[in-house]
Protein backbone atom coordinates (compact mmCIF):
# COMPACT_ATOMS: atom_id res chain seq x y z
CA UNK A 1 0.00 0.00 0.00
CA UNK A 2 1.28 3.45 -0.84
CA UNK A 3 0.42 6.57 1.13
CA UNK A 4 0.85 9.88 -0.73
CA UNK A 5 2.18 12.54 1.60
CA UNK A 6 3.68 15.62 -0.08
CA UNK A 7 4.31 17.74 2.97
CA UNK A 8 6.77 20.47 3.51
CA UNK A 9 9.48 18.96 5.64
CA UNK A 10 10.35 22.31 7.14
CA UNK A 11 6.83 22.91 8.48
CA UNK A 12 7.85 22.87 12.14
CA UNK A 13 10.33 25.65 11.56
CA UNK A 14 7.62 27.62 9.76
CA UNK A 15 5.39 27.34 12.80
CA UNK A 16 8.03 28.94 15.06
CA UNK A 17 8.84 31.56 12.43
CA UNK A 18 5.16 32.58 12.31
CA UNK A 19 5.21 32.93 16.06
CA UNK A 20 8.25 35.23 15.83
CA UNK A 21 6.49 37.37 13.20
CA UNK A 22 3.58 37.75 15.58
CA UNK A 23 5.86 38.70 18.50
CA UNK A 24 7.80 41.16 16.34
CA UNK A 25 4.64 42.82 15.09
CA UNK A 26 3.16 43.19 18.58
CA UNK A 27 6.37 44.67 19.99
CA UNK A 28 7.41 46.55 16.88
CA UNK A 29 10.74 44.77 16.63
CA UNK A 30 12.57 44.89 13.31
CA UNK A 31 14.53 41.67 12.82
CA UNK A 32 17.42 41.53 10.35
CA UNK A 33 18.84 38.12 9.49
CA UNK A 34 22.49 38.66 8.49
CA UNK A 35 23.93 35.85 6.40
CA UNK A 36 27.14 35.19 4.45
CA UNK A 37 30.33 33.13 4.31
CA UNK A 38 32.78 32.99 7.23
CA UNK A 39 34.94 36.09 7.00
CA UNK A 40 32.69 37.93 4.55
CA UNK A 41 32.12 40.79 7.01
CA UNK A 42 28.86 39.96 8.81
CA UNK A 43 30.17 41.13 12.18
CA UNK A 44 31.76 44.23 10.62
CA UNK A 45 28.41 45.08 9.04
CA UNK A 46 26.61 44.72 12.38
CA UNK A 47 29.27 46.76 14.20
CA UNK A 48 29.04 49.54 11.61
CA UNK A 49 25.26 49.58 11.97
CA UNK A 50 25.52 49.73 15.77
CA UNK A 51 27.95 52.66 15.65
CA UNK A 52 25.66 54.56 13.30
CA UNK A 53 22.32 53.87 14.93
CA UNK A 54 22.83 53.20 18.65
CA UNK A 55 22.05 56.79 19.62
CA UNK A 56 18.85 56.91 17.56
CA UNK A 57 17.25 53.47 17.97
CA UNK A 58 17.06 50.61 20.47
CA UNK A 59 19.38 47.90 19.18
CA UNK A 60 20.12 44.31 20.14
CA UNK A 61 22.11 41.48 18.61
CA UNK A 62 21.61 37.72 18.54
CA UNK A 63 24.96 36.14 17.74
CA UNK A 64 24.89 32.71 16.19
CA UNK A 65 28.11 30.80 16.28
CA UNK A 66 29.04 27.14 16.16
CA UNK A 67 31.02 27.26 19.41
CA UNK A 68 32.88 30.50 20.19
CA UNK A 69 31.81 33.77 21.81
CA UNK A 70 34.44 35.90 20.02
CA UNK A 71 31.96 38.03 18.07
CA UNK A 72 29.51 38.42 20.96
CA UNK A 73 32.26 39.75 23.23
CA UNK A 74 33.37 42.23 20.61
CA UNK A 75 29.84 43.50 20.00
CA UNK A 76 28.95 43.84 23.68
CA UNK A 77 31.85 46.32 24.01
CA UNK A 78 29.79 48.66 21.82
CA UNK A 79 27.15 48.94 24.52
CA UNK A 80 24.21 47.02 23.05
CA UNK A 81 22.52 43.95 24.42
CA UNK A 82 23.90 40.74 22.92
CA UNK A 83 22.80 37.15 23.25
CA UNK A 84 24.97 34.28 22.12
CA UNK A 85 23.50 31.14 20.58
CA UNK A 86 25.97 28.31 20.13
CA UNK A 87 24.59 25.78 17.71
CA UNK A 88 27.09 23.12 18.77
CA UNK A 89 27.89 22.10 15.22
CA UNK A 90 24.75 22.98 13.29
CA UNK A 91 25.38 25.12 10.23
CA UNK A 92 22.42 27.51 10.58
CA UNK A 93 20.05 29.06 13.10
CA UNK A 94 16.49 27.78 13.46
CA UNK A 95 13.36 29.72 14.40
CA UNK A 96 12.92 27.82 17.68
CA UNK A 97 16.17 29.17 19.10
CA UNK A 98 15.49 32.72 17.86
CA UNK A 99 12.10 32.60 19.55
CA UNK A 100 13.76 31.68 22.85
CA UNK A 101 16.52 34.26 22.38
CA UNK A 102 14.03 37.07 21.77
CA UNK A 103 12.20 36.28 24.97
CA UNK A 104 15.34 36.06 27.09
CA UNK A 105 16.73 39.34 25.73
CA UNK A 106 13.96 41.27 27.45
CA UNK A 107 13.71 43.73 24.57
CA UNK A 108 12.10 47.16 24.66
CA UNK A 109 9.35 48.05 22.22
CA UNK A 110 10.61 49.33 18.86
CA UNK A 111 13.99 47.62 18.74
CA UNK A 112 16.12 46.68 15.77
CA UNK A 113 17.48 43.17 16.30
CA UNK A 114 20.41 41.98 14.21
CA UNK A 115 20.68 38.20 13.97
CA UNK A 116 24.13 37.05 12.90
CA UNK A 117 23.63 33.68 11.26
CA UNK A 118 26.22 30.90 10.96
CA UNK A 119 28.76 31.51 8.20
CA UNK A 120 27.93 29.65 5.02
CA UNK A 121 26.03 30.30 1.81
CA UNK A 122 23.74 27.28 1.79
CA UNK A 123 22.00 26.19 4.99
CA UNK A 124 20.85 29.52 6.49
CA UNK A 125 18.87 30.39 3.36
CA UNK A 126 16.52 27.43 3.87
CA UNK A 127 15.42 28.43 7.36
CA UNK A 128 12.86 31.14 7.92
CA UNK A 129 13.58 32.95 11.20
CA UNK A 130 10.47 35.12 11.03
CA UNK A 131 12.71 38.05 10.15
CA UNK A 132 11.58 41.34 8.57
CA UNK A 133 14.58 41.44 6.29
CA UNK A 134 17.47 39.33 5.06
CA UNK A 135 20.89 40.75 4.31
CA UNK A 136 23.62 38.73 2.65
CA UNK A 137 27.16 40.00 3.13
CA UNK A 138 29.29 38.80 0.24
CA UNK A 139 32.94 39.82 -0.03
CA UNK A 140 35.06 40.62 -3.05
CA UNK A 141 37.65 38.17 -1.66
CA UNK A 142 35.27 35.24 -2.18
CA UNK A 143 35.17 35.85 -5.93
CA UNK A 144 32.69 37.10 -8.51
CA UNK A 145 31.01 33.72 -9.15
CA UNK A 146 29.09 33.46 -5.87
CA UNK A 147 25.64 34.41 -7.24
CA UNK A 148 25.98 31.67 -9.87
CA UNK A 149 27.11 29.05 -7.36
CA UNK A 150 24.73 29.86 -4.49
CA UNK A 151 21.72 31.44 -6.21
CA UNK A 152 19.21 30.63 -3.48
CA UNK A 153 21.14 32.57 -0.82
CA UNK A 154 21.09 35.71 -2.98
CA UNK A 155 17.53 35.20 -4.09
CA UNK A 156 16.29 34.82 -0.54
CA UNK A 157 17.99 38.06 0.57
CA UNK A 158 16.49 41.53 0.34
CA UNK A 159 19.80 43.37 0.40
CA UNK A 160 23.24 42.36 -0.86
CA UNK A 161 26.21 44.03 0.83
CA UNK A 162 29.35 43.50 -1.23
CA UNK A 163 32.19 44.08 1.23
CA UNK A 164 35.96 44.60 0.84
CA UNK A 165 35.55 46.68 -2.32
CA UNK A 166 38.93 48.25 -1.54
CA UNK A 167 40.57 45.10 -2.94
CA UNK A 168 38.60 44.74 -6.20
CA UNK A 169 41.71 45.46 -8.30
CA UNK A 170 44.05 43.26 -6.25
CA UNK A 171 41.70 40.27 -6.41
CA UNK A 172 40.78 40.85 -10.07
CA UNK A 173 37.08 40.78 -9.14
CA UNK A 174 34.85 41.06 -12.23
CA UNK A 175 32.11 43.45 -11.05
CA UNK A 176 30.15 43.20 -14.30
CA UNK A 177 29.96 39.41 -14.05
CA UNK A 178 28.91 39.60 -10.39
CA UNK A 179 26.13 42.12 -11.04
CA UNK A 180 24.93 40.21 -14.11
CA UNK A 181 24.52 37.08 -11.98
CA UNK A 182 22.66 39.01 -9.30
CA UNK A 183 20.33 40.58 -11.85
CA UNK A 184 19.51 37.16 -13.29
CA UNK A 185 18.42 36.14 -9.80
CA UNK A 186 16.87 39.33 -8.44
CA UNK A 187 15.74 41.17 -11.57
CA UNK A 188 14.71 44.74 -10.78
CA UNK A 189 14.51 43.97 -7.07
CA UNK A 190 18.27 44.07 -6.65
CA UNK A 191 19.50 46.26 -3.82
CA UNK A 192 23.28 46.12 -3.88
CA UNK A 193 25.64 48.17 -1.74
CA UNK A 194 29.39 48.03 -2.35
CA UNK A 195 31.30 48.92 0.83
CA UNK A 196 34.63 48.64 2.57
CA UNK A 197 34.37 48.49 6.35
CA UNK A 198 38.11 49.22 6.40
CA UNK A 199 38.27 52.38 4.26
CA UNK A 200 34.58 53.24 4.97
CA UNK A 201 33.96 53.66 1.23
CA UNK A 202 30.28 53.24 0.33
CA UNK A 203 29.16 53.31 3.95
CA UNK A 204 27.15 56.54 3.64
CA UNK A 205 24.79 55.01 1.04
CA UNK A 206 24.32 51.90 3.15
CA UNK A 207 23.60 53.92 6.27
CA UNK A 208 21.10 56.22 4.60
CA UNK A 209 19.23 53.24 3.17
CA UNK A 210 18.84 51.68 6.62
CA UNK A 211 18.15 55.05 8.21
CA UNK A 212 15.13 55.58 5.95
CA UNK A 213 14.01 52.01 6.48
CA UNK A 214 14.08 52.23 10.29
CA UNK A 215 12.48 55.68 10.27
CA UNK A 216 9.55 54.50 8.22
CA UNK A 217 9.14 51.26 10.21
CA UNK A 218 9.11 53.13 13.51
CA UNK A 219 7.14 56.04 11.94
CA UNK A 220 9.76 58.64 12.69
CA UNK A 221 10.65 61.62 10.60
Amino acid at each position, binding site marked *: *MEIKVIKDILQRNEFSADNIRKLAKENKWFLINVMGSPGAGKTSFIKAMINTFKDRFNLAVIEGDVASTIDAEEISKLGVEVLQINTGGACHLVADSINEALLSLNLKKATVVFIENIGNLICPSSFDLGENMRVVVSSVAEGDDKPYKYPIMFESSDVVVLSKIDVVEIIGFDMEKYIKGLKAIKGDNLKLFGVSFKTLEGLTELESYFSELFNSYFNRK
Partner: protein
Amino acid sequence: MHEYFVTQQLIKIAEDELKEVKPKKVLSITVVVGELSGIIDESLKFYFDILTKGTILEGSKLEIVQKKALLFCNSCQSLFERTKDFLCPKCKSLGKLTEHGREFYIESIEVDDGDGN
Protein backbone atom coordinates in the same frame (compact mmCIF):
# COMPACT_ATOMS: atom_id res chain seq x y z
CA MET B 1 24.95 19.58 7.68
CA HIS B 2 21.43 20.81 8.41
CA GLU B 3 20.25 17.41 7.28
CA TYR B 4 20.25 16.25 10.92
CA PHE B 5 17.51 18.74 11.78
CA VAL B 6 15.71 18.16 8.51
CA THR B 7 15.77 14.38 8.94
CA GLN B 8 14.25 14.74 12.41
CA GLN B 9 11.38 16.73 10.88
CA LEU B 10 10.98 14.25 8.07
CA ILE B 11 10.65 11.35 10.50
CA LYS B 12 8.17 13.30 12.62
CA ILE B 13 5.94 14.04 9.63
CA ALA B 14 6.08 10.43 8.49
CA GLU B 15 5.21 9.20 11.99
CA ASP B 16 2.22 11.56 12.10
CA GLU B 17 1.01 10.31 8.71
CA LEU B 18 1.31 6.71 9.84
CA LYS B 19 -0.61 7.16 13.11
CA GLU B 20 -3.96 6.43 11.50
CA VAL B 21 -2.73 3.72 9.18
CA LYS B 22 -0.94 1.74 11.90
CA PRO B 23 0.99 -0.42 9.42
CA LYS B 24 2.69 -3.67 10.27
CA LYS B 25 5.86 -2.46 8.70
CA VAL B 26 7.08 0.58 6.81
CA LEU B 27 8.86 -0.52 3.65
CA SER B 28 10.09 2.74 2.19
CA ILE B 29 9.70 6.47 2.23
CA THR B 30 10.19 8.50 -0.93
CA VAL B 31 11.50 12.04 -0.67
CA VAL B 32 11.84 14.48 -3.56
CA VAL B 33 14.98 16.64 -3.34
CA GLY B 34 15.73 19.49 -5.74
CA GLU B 35 19.25 20.50 -6.68
CA LEU B 36 18.75 23.97 -5.20
CA SER B 37 17.16 22.81 -1.94
CA GLY B 38 20.54 22.73 -0.19
CA ILE B 39 19.92 19.15 0.93
CA ILE B 40 22.68 16.59 0.43
CA ASP B 41 21.24 13.15 -0.34
CA GLU B 42 24.05 11.23 1.32
CA SER B 43 23.71 13.16 4.59
CA LEU B 44 19.96 12.59 4.58
CA LYS B 45 20.50 8.85 4.20
CA PHE B 46 23.20 8.85 6.87
CA TYR B 47 20.98 10.51 9.48
CA PHE B 48 17.88 8.60 8.39
CA ASP B 49 19.37 5.25 9.36
CA ILE B 50 20.50 6.57 12.74
CA LEU B 51 17.42 8.60 13.65
CA THR B 52 14.82 6.01 12.65
CA LYS B 53 16.15 3.53 15.23
CA GLY B 54 13.39 2.76 17.71
CA THR B 55 10.69 4.38 15.52
CA ILE B 56 8.10 2.80 13.25
CA LEU B 57 10.39 3.70 10.35
CA GLU B 58 13.28 1.54 11.60
CA GLY B 59 14.52 -0.71 8.83
CA SER B 60 12.67 1.16 6.09
CA LYS B 61 14.43 2.38 3.00
CA LEU B 62 14.84 6.04 2.16
CA GLU B 63 14.31 6.55 -1.57
CA ILE B 64 15.42 9.90 -2.96
CA VAL B 65 14.08 11.32 -6.21
CA GLN B 66 16.41 14.05 -7.44
CA LYS B 67 15.17 17.03 -9.41
CA LYS B 68 17.47 19.18 -11.53
CA ALA B 69 17.44 22.97 -11.35
CA LEU B 70 15.91 24.46 -14.49
CA LEU B 71 16.31 28.05 -15.65
CA PHE B 72 13.93 29.90 -17.93
CA CYS B 73 15.14 31.82 -20.95
CA ASN B 74 13.00 34.87 -21.68
CA SER B 75 14.40 35.32 -25.18
CA CYS B 76 13.63 31.89 -26.61
CA GLN B 77 11.05 30.91 -23.97
CA SER B 78 12.74 27.64 -23.11
CA LEU B 79 13.61 25.83 -19.91
CA PHE B 80 17.20 24.67 -19.62
CA GLU B 81 19.37 22.90 -17.04
CA ARG B 82 21.53 25.22 -14.97
CA THR B 83 24.75 26.22 -16.71
CA LYS B 84 27.65 27.75 -14.78
CA ASP B 85 27.08 31.25 -16.13
CA PHE B 86 23.25 30.95 -16.30
CA LEU B 87 23.40 31.38 -20.09
CA CYS B 88 20.82 29.62 -22.26
CA PRO B 89 22.60 26.93 -24.36
CA LYS B 90 20.36 27.76 -27.34
CA CYS B 91 20.47 31.55 -27.64
CA LYS B 92 23.10 32.54 -25.04
CA SER B 93 20.71 34.87 -23.22
CA LEU B 94 20.76 35.08 -19.43
CA GLY B 95 18.29 32.68 -17.81
CA LYS B 96 16.22 33.11 -14.66
CA LEU B 97 15.68 30.70 -11.77
CA THR B 98 12.37 28.85 -11.69
CA GLU B 99 10.61 26.64 -9.16
CA HIS B 100 12.29 23.59 -10.69
CA GLY B 101 15.07 22.45 -8.39
CA ARG B 102 13.70 23.73 -5.08
CA GLU B 103 11.59 20.70 -4.28
CA PHE B 104 11.83 19.14 -0.87
CA TYR B 105 8.93 17.02 0.27
CA ILE B 106 7.84 13.52 1.16
CA GLU B 107 6.15 12.09 -1.89
CA SER B 108 4.95 8.81 -0.50
CA ILE B 109 5.37 6.13 2.10
CA GLU B 110 5.08 2.49 1.24
CA VAL B 111 3.81 0.25 4.01
CA ASP B 112 2.96 -3.37 4.59
CA ASP B 113 -0.44 -3.20 6.30
CA GLY B 114 -0.68 -6.92 6.93
CA ASP B 115 -3.18 -7.70 4.13
CA GLY B 116 -0.45 -8.40 1.66
CA ASN B 117 -1.28 -5.10 -0.06
